[in-house]
């Protein structure tokens, strides 16, 4: 018990440490990228020299990335996530307001994408006649920009929030199909089929256990993939979620907001992948 607890604590500490490193690397990337100190207000002819000097002084304060990052980390430990430079609002407030939108989008996207990819991959394996059609559909879906899909859906009056599922499923389909196909061709599966084991039996007792590690790993990264897809979908469909916020932060070089978002994404990624690892170990132990 103590050993397990120790392991959990060590893993949690590693999670936090990785997230902290990720936040710092993000800050360094943003700080050293082009356009960091640029300010659109410099193009406003109405501003006088005093105002321009004040703008430059604001940027001076943000220049030291190490100091700025440590200051932000200290504040976060006290629950203060800082203020967004571009939106001029508390970051905690921004995230709290937008989290439900993205959470819903991603839940529908990941769930829907997996269901679609899983069902189609299985269908393609079980009925080779549909394999080509489904494969072609998946390839075509991969080739359409998510923005175009989103707007087509909007124009057609369909559920725009299902776009992530439509964008995600082709990215999962190929891998799932190949895994299932390879598993179906294994000798022991052929034996089981020859001995009259039915479809669900084959699937749950032979196919899924074989593919479990890869499936769980894919599930882990599909959450991150879904967030990646959420960014253009939310931005282009004007859904006020975290993806749209991330895009605005990136284009405005909003360092405090980008750091917090990177921390969140790193923690989410690690959580999903750690869960996938843990479930794989459990599966293998069984």
């Amino acid at each position: 018990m103590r050993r397990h607890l120790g392991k959990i604590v060590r893993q949690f500490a590693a999670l936090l440490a990785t997230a902290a490193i990720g936040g710092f690397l993000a800050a360094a990337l943003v700080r050293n990228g082009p356009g960091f100190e640029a300010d659109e207000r410099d193009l406003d002819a109405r501003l006088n020299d005093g105002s321009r000097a004040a703008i430059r002084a604001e940027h001076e304060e943000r220049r030291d990335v190490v100091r700025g990052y440590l200051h932000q980390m200290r504040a976060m430990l006290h629950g203060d996530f800082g203020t967004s430079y571009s939106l001029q609002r508390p970051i905690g407030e921004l995230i709290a307001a937008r989290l439900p939108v993205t959470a819903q989008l991603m839940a529908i996207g990941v769930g829907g994408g997996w269901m679609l990819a899983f069902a189609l991959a299985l269908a393609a394996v079980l009925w080779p006649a549909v394999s080509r059609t489904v494969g072609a559909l998946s390839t075509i879906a991969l080739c359409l920009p998510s923005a175009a899909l989103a707007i087509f859906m909007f124009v057609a009056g369909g559920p725009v929030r299902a776009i992530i599922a439509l964008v995600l499923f082709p990215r999962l389909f190929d891998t799932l199909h190949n895994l299932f196909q390879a598993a179906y061709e294994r000798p022991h599966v052929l034996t089981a089929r020859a001995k009259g084991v039915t479809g669900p039996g084959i699937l749950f007792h032979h196919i899924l256990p074989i593919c479990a590690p890869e499936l769980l790993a894919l599930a882990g990264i599909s959450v991150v993939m879904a967030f990646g897809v959420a960014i253009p979908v939310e931005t282009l469909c004007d859904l006020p979620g975290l993806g749209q916020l991330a895009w605005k932060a990136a284009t405005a070089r909003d360092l405090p907001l980008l750091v917090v978002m990177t921390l969140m994404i790193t923690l989410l990624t690690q959580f999903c992948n750690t869960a996938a690892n843990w479930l794989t170990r459990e599966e293998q132990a069984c």
Partner: protein
Amino acid sequence: MKNFFCRTAILAATLAGSSLAQSGGELRFCLRADPKTFDPLRVEDDNSETVRYITGGVLLRVNRKTQELSPELARSWKVDQQGRRITFHLRTGLSFSDGTPFTADDVAYTVTRLMDPKLHSATADPFRSSDAPPQIAVTARDTIAITFATPISGLERLFDQVAILSRHSPKKIAAVMGPFFVSEYKPGVEIVLSRNPYYWKLDANGQRMPYLDRIRLQIQQNRDMELVRFRRGELDLINSLDPEVFEQLARQSPESVSDAGASLESEMLWFNQVPTSAIPAHKREWFASQDFRRAVSEAINRADLVKLVYKGHAAPAAGLISPANKFWVNRSLAPHPFDARSATARLVKAGFTSHSDGLYDRAGHRVEFSVVTNAGNKTRERIAVMLQQDLEHIGIKLNVVTLDFPSLIERMTQTFQYEACLLGLTNLDLDPSAQMNVWLSSAADHQWNPNQKTPATPWEAEIDRLMRAQAAELRLAERKRLFDQVQQIVWEQEPFIYLINKNSLMAFSPQLRNQAPAAIQPQAYWNIDQMKKSTLVAGR
């Protein structure tokens, strides 16, 4: 007789019905992003400006249609002491949106806040003619005189941007004098503005304005989505349309679109002439040559840009002032003609030679340079590609480089690592004094060679002299004469190669009434207090 009464009754019923249906209602249109601030004195972005325009009560207003100054909260005003002092006589008996009385004290409070040295904003800076704060004298409940240390040309027009705040209201900046006030804000979603019950304007029939009950500003960045929603009737107006979208809408419902003619926006190209920039010396030499710049200008087919990029909804630009600026434009200037032969002749005169594989300078360098512009702006990317083909005809190789906006601004204003730049300009103010920071050679927005310690060329020195002279001059006719000369010099020297002036393109729902499309922002809703919404589409 019976028919007459019937017809009269029907007419009366229709009129009564239509006037009843034309009061109230909700106007819906989009903002591109959340406003950065609701403090009217700190407004710097378009979205905040929209909210300020609709909610803010100002002392004087520039009528966007006539471009004349008209009284608002001030019933009259007077500028004296050589443009240093402005005296306002205010309307009496008015209140803010929460019922707090409006007096001269509120104007004094607003101006004091505006002139706070800690406030750095585009609204405040035009008033700062010197470091000394203005003297504010409230001589009566409805009279206030503001005296600045040095004259400010076009002083009265600057008050179009100053929304008056209440000194005493507990609601602070939320208490406004405009036709609407902010009643609800959902970040990332929408802002709801409700009718100000204390709005002071009455129409000719004595009815209190505004006619609309509410305005719903929805946050929508994607223009395709905006268009779809407009077509579905979910939006009532689109303030600014892309030419392609305009054409598409015009085909489907011509009565819904409006082209109000030339706007104050223009597209232009300029060359980097910063002496310390990292571009090769021979390129700097090309860019510094008036003949080179004029040749490039003459090689550009502006008519094609108008036709292909703007679908005819633009006009070739002659110079720095758009024809939309009725008073200040120099009408004697015409756009530079498209003449590749003349362009080539100028280049030969400047020492360039044409070979089969391109144009070469005296030192044998192939004439090739890059133009940077902002990525994601389809219009500008198209213009750049068209310039490429036009310049190819005179042997110049143009490389188009699109950059994300912050990277572009950094190159333009800080590192000067660019060769030529293609960008647009919007003159927010009609008065040329608003462009001092562009035309003075020592200014930061003198884009081709900013922050000069002394003018690099005689013509820039002359522009400096003329701009300062017109800023110090009070007589409008004399200012016009001086500024016409500035326009003439710019036309000859072409530090900015002006390409086109865009038209103001808008769309309106058939249910809207009293809209009066204008060329100046906010072009579609500048008279929002007079706009109505009808449910009787047949009543038109």
